């Protein structure tokens, strides 16, 4: 048998999966667009033409439009309350834009699976908890992007962050920013969340070290006002 790099492409999994608590508002078609641009580049055509979306300017609608974006383009994003212009490709994910193209780089959100499995890149975009690896940077235009770097005020940690420290809710810490964002989003929307809701809120976040029991304790301590 022979093949042209017959690496199994897990296409079957490429549809944007959302997990309990993570409201990733991404239609499968956008992931397809990303793939189209990548394979165009692979064929040596390095001018990927991608259908973008005017809807990106409105925080509600996701209806497709006729905007065409290609090559490296400059966009303006609102990140943690500050406007920033950055150069991205249409296929650049929001996560990659923040980690690799923002200045200074915002590396708090982690790249772990790059396919919406693990929640390490959880961030709040337009008020919704999303996976940064499943969002295109161009689609974040006009929306407020909140990352883990934006939670503290000056040197003061947020209540959720303090609770994570107090309850030893991180070990290696690589998943921690994602859990912090998921719990923050949960408690902003459900200030008196119970254990069941908290578990559901971070069901889309993986942790290999096994910090979950302490994450639950941290979240509950804030929900009950313990870390205020």
């Amino acid at each position, binding site marked *: 048998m022979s093949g042209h*790099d017959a690496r199994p492409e897990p296409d079957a999994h490429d549809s944007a999966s959302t997990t309990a608590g993570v409201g990733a508002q991404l239609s499968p078609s956008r992931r397809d667009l990303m793939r189209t641009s990548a394979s165009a580049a692979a064929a040596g055509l390095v001018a990927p033409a991608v259908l973008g979306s005017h809807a990106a300017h409105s925080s509600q609608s996701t209806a497709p439009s006729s905007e065409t974006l290609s090559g490296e383009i400059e966009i303006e994003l609102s990140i943690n309350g500050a406007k920033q212009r950055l150069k991205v490709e249409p296929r650049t994910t929001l996560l990659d834009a923040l980690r690799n193209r923002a200045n200074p780089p915002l590396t708090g959100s982690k790249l772990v699976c790059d*396919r919406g499995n693990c929640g390490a890149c959880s961030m709040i975009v337009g008020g919704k908890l999303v996976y940064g690896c499943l969002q295109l940077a161009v689609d974040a235009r006009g929306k407020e992007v909140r990352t883990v770097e934006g939670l503290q005020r000056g040197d003061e*940690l947020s209540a959720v962050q303090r609770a994570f*420290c107090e309850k030893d809710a*991180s070990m290696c810490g690589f998943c921690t920013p994602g859990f912090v964002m998921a719990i923050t989003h949960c408690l902003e929307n459900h200030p008196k969340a119970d254990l069941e809701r908290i578990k559901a809120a971070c069901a889309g976040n993986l942790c290999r070290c*096994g910090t979950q029991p*302490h994450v639950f304790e941290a979240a509950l301590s804030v929900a009950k006002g313990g870390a205020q």
Partner: protein
Amino acid sequence: MSALPPFPGAGYPDASLLAPAQDVGAKQKRTRKVKSTKVVDGIEQEVEIEVEDSGGPEWGPRESLKVLDKELQRVDGPVKVSGRATYTHDVRVPGMAWARLLLAPVASLKVARLDFSACKAVKGYLGHEVIEAEETRWLGQPIAAVAAETSEAAEDCLRAIVFEWEARPSVLDREAALKPDAPQVSRRGNQGKPAVRGDEAKARAAIEGAPHKVSATYVVPVVHHACLETHGAVVDWRGGEEAVVHCSSQHTFGFAGDAAEVLGLKKGNVVGLVEHMGGGFGSKFGFGQEGEAAARLSKALRRPVHLMLTRKDEFRMAGNRSGSHIEASAGMDAAGRLVGFAARAHKHGGIGDGSLSGLPYIYKCAESWSEISGVRTNLDASRAMRAPGHPQASFATESLIDELAYAAGLDLLEVRKANLDDQVWHRQLERVAREVGWFEHPHRARPGSAKDELCVGIGFAISRWGGGGGPSCEVEVAIERDGSVVSSVGSQDLGTGVRTYVAAIPAEELGLPLSAVVARIGSTRLGNANGSGGSVTTASLAPAVKHAAWNARQAFAEVLAPLLGCQPPDVVFADGAVQAASGGRKLSWKQACAALPEAGLRAKGAWQAHLQANGVHGAQAAKVEVDTLTGRVRVLHMACMQDVGLCLNRAATRSQINGGMVQALGYALFEERVVDAALGIQLNPCFEDYKLPHSLEIPKMTVVLDDEDRRAPIGMSEAPIVPGGAAIANAIHNACGARIRSLPCTPDKVLAALGKVS
């Protein structure tokens, strides 16, 4: 009050007290023999060594401790919760190129064509390195590496490589490997030399004569470390004699040496950095082929190169825990004692040899025999993974014990105690049993019936680990004139809490709060440290930190004694102040430090055998609910009791134990590497198909630290991952009678064991 002026002529410490550790010990030389742990390839071996006993620092009675043995907040908690902790993945250097690897997609192949012309035409292409141009013999073996201006361009370059290949004959599982005409995986053949223990004839005779006997085959799959931070490095060489290398590694001083070799530089001219690292679990000791590729690209491009594996590549080339196939027989007498045990076991370590702990695991047996050998396949080599070989041996042994106990109609808890002399396990088993409600449980000597739709069961298992340390760490504790205290050593923190106790130990010694001490770790610019594997770090490092802190205190006392009008041994450091034991003038820490010379005070520390111990015990109980209609298992409660010697940080220790149980839960119910039978393509190289436990599957968890033995600190992080898998499998059987002898205990296996599907 302003800082005190230094007393003329009295402010300078005795130089001898600032000298390295051994000088202090030399004053009152005595030796003692201690058990220690030596780690070879991440697997611990117990050795007895004679060590010099300094007679100096002691941990002191636990009741007197103010910092250690308490619930501490990690000193790096704030940077971790705010995204400011910099991992290798996060390193950004001006001019940095982004690199990707091309891996062999199948178990073994012959390269037919490897053409980079289209790759070179991709916008942003910077360079490539060919790693293997002819043939490969394991899944995931690197073929080539490419570097580009952006991560997107690197991906484009990778896809533009024209790579054609022909599959070579390969063996992918034990059965195929052992066939007489099987393709040979290596020149050493497909089977390693068996390690044999005991007398087979005697063991089989003992089993034959026993009133209760069971023969069964237990299978455990290959599972992955699944570190959330993938393997990789950022190699920063821009020409010249020196380089800086960041690597997600468990051995800062190890990979830096490897990097120097690839770069052709002197080891001393390469700085290795591991500021934070996102999990290793035994898989991140060397620089790895990914690190070498990054170094080669950096050398070729004369610019920094960032090469971190993608998740898919991580699954395919970055290690795994070996699987096992264990054919075992055992006999039990009427009193529940194991009288005979015989096992022939194969380890599945891919092209490596794998690991499997001795059988039977922990429990004593009058006549036992085992023959253990590795069976090689064309899959990537297993690596050390948290307690290498122990969970596999635990699963087989604990399953057999339960099967025998049921055959004999004996209580599962009592049977275990009948085969353990060490009373520590007795008390631990009883405690975890109480925690999960064993003594109120309706079926303790026979399994429940599957006639109920939802069945609840309880299972037990135990663990042990060495966890002793050795002389490898060089620690410095510095006290500055402004009152700052810095404790430094090159060691890395894998998430276990090393950084925190590097600060906490001097805080305790100097009577300061934890916040008064800064820990600096993770750099070859600092004192040497061993690799973190086999739970050797704490017992190797903590004594050296203690010794450095003690030396600093001694030296500081020499400075302060004249100010306080007492002898140096009578200077008391407590509650952020210093005072003579007899009372009198009291100086705040800042005031005291102002008496130091401009350069402050620096003291070194080295390993002290008497400040560590060896050998931990653990017991776990699992309570599960089995849905006999769907076969789905829900773990309701896991309880662990564990001794750790002196606990340096109770919060972090509990976290480590929780983590062991969560990983064991994944091992028991979900995790298994799946490769296709024809070519060896991994079918689940991502987290939606390789399932880790998530929050909805985390049961109630109870951690009990066993404080009864007042020993010095012992490495403990391996032990908690060992028993959980066996305990859960046993609990499933106890619930409904479904004995699952092959992990993971997936719903189909539960239903098959209940006879509901074939």
